């Protein structure tokens, strides 16, 4: 038999039929819904008189629009409220399992799926959100889809798809102290570029990846889309199985053992073909951050902002200059020491308990610098509760951080958590596009430890100096 990659295996397990032109009808095991990209799809079903084929393979949660302040108060923003109420009507009408705003299990859809054991190894998982790639950390083929495709999955439990190409990114070696999964992924994106993975599914491999916990693997897979790849994958192993065991919706008892037997087959075969192979050495990766308005503009914290004059291509040079102007930075300046106004620790990239622990380690016994607003937005109600049981909330509150409710929050500024024009933010989120966190806002992407370091020093800082 021809050796296959992990992607090939999951793909083969889910092909219902391949049409004469090469498009496949691919079966979907889990469909995750949120309030922003689903209303038009439900409306489409209704207009066509179609049913939701498998509500028991579907899950819904509100996250993008929700306020992260007191939840017992009514939602002030009428359009946000309408979207949330629309989702609530739709899940009721179509019988979709739903985690409502006031449920302790509510949270960011890409935190909730793995946390509940809804996302499992070997599955195909889709959601109308590009960061669905996160669930690839489970060893599942997970990718974001548009709303027309959401409607297609609702009606058919399948999607029309051509197989992606296979890319492997291998990170061998031992990460230096103070270097996190976020630094690894920013370095990978800096290396291959934001279109480097377009058309591919990326399998992350190598000892440095294997050594990451599930939260770290989720951070890596989450930002596959920032490297252009719709999906990222990490082969499931004992770290995965230990994580999945006893989750509310995971298989139980003997079923779990049968599942693990199957999941152990989900590895890339020796000699399988990758269309593209990229390797990084763990030792070369430093705490990193972005300086521009594209996630590929990555620098080590010890580095200097690049000089457009060094760029030979005219249009690229102009784009670099525009990024510097937008970001309020000078060519060649040291990035460390740049003052920040806001610190955001949260998002589907970095809002899990492990992320909050890393931030708390830096924040403990220190104070948020004068004039800096620092917010912690846990990924789910359960993450928040766990952090409170560990006393992390008190560390943050004592230091002067805001301790908020779960949601997407300032990652994309659909709720009231937004930057104002010109504000500079050290953010653990995934996109630094112009206006992403609020019109005119300036975003530096970095790890939770680096974000906490920026909060307590008031400027972009090498977190290694503080631990």
């Amino acid at each position, binding site marked *: 038999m021809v050796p296959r990659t992990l992607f090939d295996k999951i793909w083969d397990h889910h092909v219902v039929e391949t049409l004469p032109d090469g498009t496949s009808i691919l079966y979907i095991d889990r469909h995750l819904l949120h309030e922003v990209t689903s209303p038009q799809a439900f409306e489409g079903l209704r207009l066509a008189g179609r049913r939701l084929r498998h509500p028991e393979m579907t899950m819904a949660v509100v996250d993008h629009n929700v306020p992260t302040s007191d939840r017992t108060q009514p939602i002030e923003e009428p*359009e946000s409220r309408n979207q949330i109420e629309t989702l609530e009507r739709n899940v009721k009408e179509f019988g979709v399992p739903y985690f409502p705003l006031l449920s302790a299990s509510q949270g960011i859809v890409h935190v909730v799926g793995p946390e509940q054991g809804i996302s499992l190894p070997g599955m195909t998982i889709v959601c109308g959100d590009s960061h669905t790639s996160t669930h690839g950390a489970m060893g599942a083929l997970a990718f974001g889809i548009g709303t027309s495709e959401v409607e297609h999955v609702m009606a058919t439990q399948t999607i029309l798809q051509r197989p992606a190409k296979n890319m492997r990114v291998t990170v061998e070696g031992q990460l230096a102290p103070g270097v996190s999964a976020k630094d690894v992924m920013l370095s990978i994106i800096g290396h291959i570029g934001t*279109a480097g993975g377009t058309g591919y599914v990326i399998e992350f491999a190598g000892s440095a990846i294997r050594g990451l916990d599930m939260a770290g693997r989720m951070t890596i897979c989450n930002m596959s889309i920032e490297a252009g790849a719709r999906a990222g994958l990490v082969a499931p192993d004992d770290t995965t199985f230990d994580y999945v065991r006893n989750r509310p919706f995971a298989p139980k008892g003997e079923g779990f053992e049968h599942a693990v037997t199957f999941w152990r087959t989900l590895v890339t075969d020796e000699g399988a073909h990758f269309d593209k192979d990229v390797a990084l050495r763990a030792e070369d990766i430093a705490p990193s951050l972005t300086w521009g308005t594209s996630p590929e503009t990555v620098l080590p914290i010890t580095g200097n902002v690049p000089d457009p004059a060094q760029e030979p291509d005219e249009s690229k040079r102009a784009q670099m200059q525009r990024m510097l102007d937008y970001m309020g930075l000078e060519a060649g300046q040291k990035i460390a020491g740049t003052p920040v106004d806001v610190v955001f620790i949260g998002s589907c990239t970095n809002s899990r308990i492990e992320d909050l622990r890393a931030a708390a380690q830096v924040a403990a016994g220190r104070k948020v610098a004068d004039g800096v607003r620092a917010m912690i937005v846990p990924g789910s109600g359960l993450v928040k509760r766990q952090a409170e049981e560990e006393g992390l909330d008190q560390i943050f509150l004592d230091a002067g951080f805001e301790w908020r409710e779960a949601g997407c929050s300032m990652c994309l500024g659909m709720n009231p958590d937004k930057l104002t024009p010109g504000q500079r933010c050290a953010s653990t989120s995934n996109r630094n596009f112009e206006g992403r966190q609020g019109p005119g806002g300036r975003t530096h992407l970095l790890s939770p430890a680096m974000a906490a370091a920026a909060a307590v020093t008031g400027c972009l800082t090498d977190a290694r100096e503080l631990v």
Partner: protein
Amino acid sequence: MEKFTTLSAVAAALPEDNIDTDKIIPARFLKTTQRTGLGKYAFDSMRYRPDGSENPDFILNREPWRKAEILVTYDNLGCGSSREHAPWALLDFGIRCVIAPSFADIFFNNCFKNGILPIALPRDVCDQLMSDSTMGSNARLTIDLPRQVVIRPDGEEVPFEIDPFRKHMLLEGLDDIGQTLQHDTEIKTFEQKVDGERPWMPTITLD
């Protein structure tokens, strides 16, 4: 979905790499529950000044490009979020065809679902089309989907590739769901097979 056969229209050039979906439509305009009416938000941060007035320098605010139905850009158009609001906003603005050296995957897909034709052409060809577009209303580009060519104002024909299934769907204005449901028997057979092979596969039920 509206059929796409041929289109002869004004083209506008946005000579930038990595035009992301936040730039096409910022997240704060995603609060609608409709697909229509998003054209007024397309390229918001480039099209309007902070006081809400039109930016007269932005290409889509100038004649004749205000009526552009074709957009030509550089690499990785539509990167970022999966929001279908991006093609909805373009479509509502009047854009039926986008041309770039490369596209982000999800955006590329989403275009087809809405009757927008994305055409990938080499960067130097995009440069030529951008140059054509500066001739304004005298510079209509013609997109002939059945023959798979872009016809430049001087009559030169530039061939392009398209997946045959997607071409068929665009030409006929077909919706994928109806097509897939014709394979309902195969889907059911697949479901029975998986139930037999992986009986431990849980379902999601909440009390």
